[in-house]
């Protein structure tokens, strides 16, 4: 046990060291110094992984928030805070990683004052900005609880529902818009991945992977902090995953059949192989594991299912933004060593911050906030004593 921890510590230090070097190289030289990007292939690993996957993998935040606050499913509250923290950190990391990818990162604030409502990226930028603010507010109670600021919690209680609602709408918009980014270049995208439904496919796959990420998160935090895993809750998440995967299977099958792209899936090309690997990991394998092998009731198998589905999701985003485009422009793009180091470093940084936050803030406390309002500590705060009615 101890050795494993020290191994991860050494790995973390090594990665962050390399990340520091990569950062220096990136900002003292141009993009050409650290990336394999080119005029015919201007978006690479950082867009595919750090941004498209980063935003998608953080979708658990709005999904679980909607389940607990809008649908009133209180029993899922134990996984709410970890999901929101993951989403909040996820979005902060996306913005952080964006600073490496942008040619002129010091102009990153320009969309605030320079508008182009016809640009999908303008819309994504605004949604991400607003939603990160929403996530900060959704996460704030953990901090206020730590600081024992009762009034903050009361104010927060009043704005929760509109906040969560705004979060769900903003997420719907930008999760789907990340797919819309590719609508304007049909000629550049291999038919196995181009679809007019890209925005819908991106949204549904994000909801699915958000559920899977809740399971994956629980696994990591159980290993890192020795926490018990709430198997009865995760089992439900396993079952919830079925729906988005079924919708994805139907939509993609139907769409490829209609566009005639399906024939290309049976050609002997690397694209076809990657296509089937993606479909297998993101849809077929998890569906079979849950429906045939009852994975949702078998802890180890459930973990495997969730990991496969996350892997399939990542491969999907990489396929849309790298495989499908390289198949037509033939730039022969493959990420450089430093591109990988920076992506890896960003993820590592996220894990370190998550672990630190989980250590010092009440992330894993299961009772609803309101239960804690009864504690006398809030009485001497100027907040009014909660009425029985409000405690529900």
């Amino acid at each position, binding site marked *: 046990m101890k050795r494993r921890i020290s191994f991860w510590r050494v790995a973390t230090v090594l990665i962050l060291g390399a990340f520091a070097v990569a950062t220096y190289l990136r900002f003292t030289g141009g993009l050409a110094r650290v990336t394999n990007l080119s005029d015919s292939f201007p978006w690479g690993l950082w867009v595919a992984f750090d941004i498209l996957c980063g935003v998608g993998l953080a979708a658990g935040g709005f999904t679980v928030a909607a389940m607990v606050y809008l649908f*009133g499913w209180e029993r899922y509250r134990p996984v709410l805070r970890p999901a929101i923290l993951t989403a909040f950190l996820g979005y902060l990391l996306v913005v952080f990683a964006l600073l490496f*990818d942008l040619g*002129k990162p010091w102009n990153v604030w320009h969309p605030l004052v320079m508008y182009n409502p016809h640009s999908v990226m303008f819309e994504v930028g605004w949604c991400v900005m607003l939603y990160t603010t929403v996530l900060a507010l959704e996460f704030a109670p953990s901090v206020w609880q730590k600081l024992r600021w009762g009034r903050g919690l009361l104010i927060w209680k009043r704005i929760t529902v509109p906040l969560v609602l705004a979060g769900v709408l903003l997420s719907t918009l930008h999760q789907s818009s990340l797919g819309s980014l590719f609508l304007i270049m049909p000629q550049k995208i291999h038919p196995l991945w181009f679809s007019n439904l890209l925005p819908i496919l991106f949204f549904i796959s994000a909801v699915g992977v958000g559920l899977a990420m809740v399971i994956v998160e629980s696994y990591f935090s159980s290993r890192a902090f020795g926490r018990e895993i709430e198997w009865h809750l995760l089992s439900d998440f396993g079952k919830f995953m079925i729906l988005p995967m079924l919708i994805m299977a139907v939509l993609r099958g139907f769409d490829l059949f209609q566009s005639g792209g399906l024939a290309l899936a049976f050609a002997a090309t690397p694209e076809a192989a990657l296509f089937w690997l993606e479909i297998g990991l993101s849809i077929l394998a998890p569906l079979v594991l849950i429906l045939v092998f009852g994975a949702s009731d078998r802890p180890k198998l459930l973990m495997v299912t969730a990991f496969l589905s996350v892997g399939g999701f990542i491969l999907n985003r990489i396929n849309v933004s790298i495989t499908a485009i390289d198949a037509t422009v033939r730039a022969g793009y493959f990420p450089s060593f430093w591109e990988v180091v920076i992506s890896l470093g960003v993820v590592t940084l996220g894990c370190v911050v998550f672990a630190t936050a989980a250590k010092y803030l009440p992330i894993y406390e299961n009772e609803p906030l309101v239960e804690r309002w009864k504690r006398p500590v809030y009485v001497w705060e100027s907040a009014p004593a909660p009425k029985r009615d409000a405690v529900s």
Partner: protein
Amino acid sequence: MSYALLLDTTRCIGCMACQEACQTEYGFPVHEEKTLSATARTSVEPHGDTYVRRMCMHCESPSCASVCPVAALRKTPEGPVIYDEKVCMGCRYCLAACPFGVPRYEWDSVTPRVQKCTMCHHRIVEGKLPACVEACPAEAVTFGTRKEMLAEARLRIMSNPDQYVPKIYGEHIVGGTSVFVLASVPFEELGLNDKLGDQPMPELTWKALSKIPEVVTLGGAFMMGLFWIIERRNRNMKSQGGEESSQ
């Protein structure tokens, strides 16, 4: 007034005077480059016996301007699509979106800019000709209003039907451009993509983007309704439970 350029590949002699004039005008080191680059906003590519001038097509509905999140690229009333490096944040969506693969990026620079032809917009507004037009010794490029250039192109095709394919590249493609190309062989043979279709590319995005108001209002109303029903039901259940326990 909307201007345009007419490129006649049957007249081009591949002397590269256009590239030299362009590099001089924009302060790049004058040196021959066979393809577009960050230091060559225009180039002449040999395809068999034909020389094909490559440059920004200055679309009527430019993809680059439509995707730019900060409107650093913009279609001017005079026709050229121009770029403001002070506004650009370097997302390179324009490079990804351009159907003609024109914009180039200064990958080696710490303060990188997009490089593409601006049809010498600053000269046009001063009433001067674009630098390349002035420099071309073979009259392979002609400058005038978009209407004039289309008429001129039609005239050349009609008066020499054996010399030209009966089509003006740029008249309808992706909704029309402000650069027209004439050729004696099918455009695909000259490396010009003729399969892009006549629909302006930004319309593809707009189909999705224009649904946002509906998603927000209908989605918001639906979820508010759902929340109201569920919340009310939960409260009713709780108050009933409370009465029972107090009895």
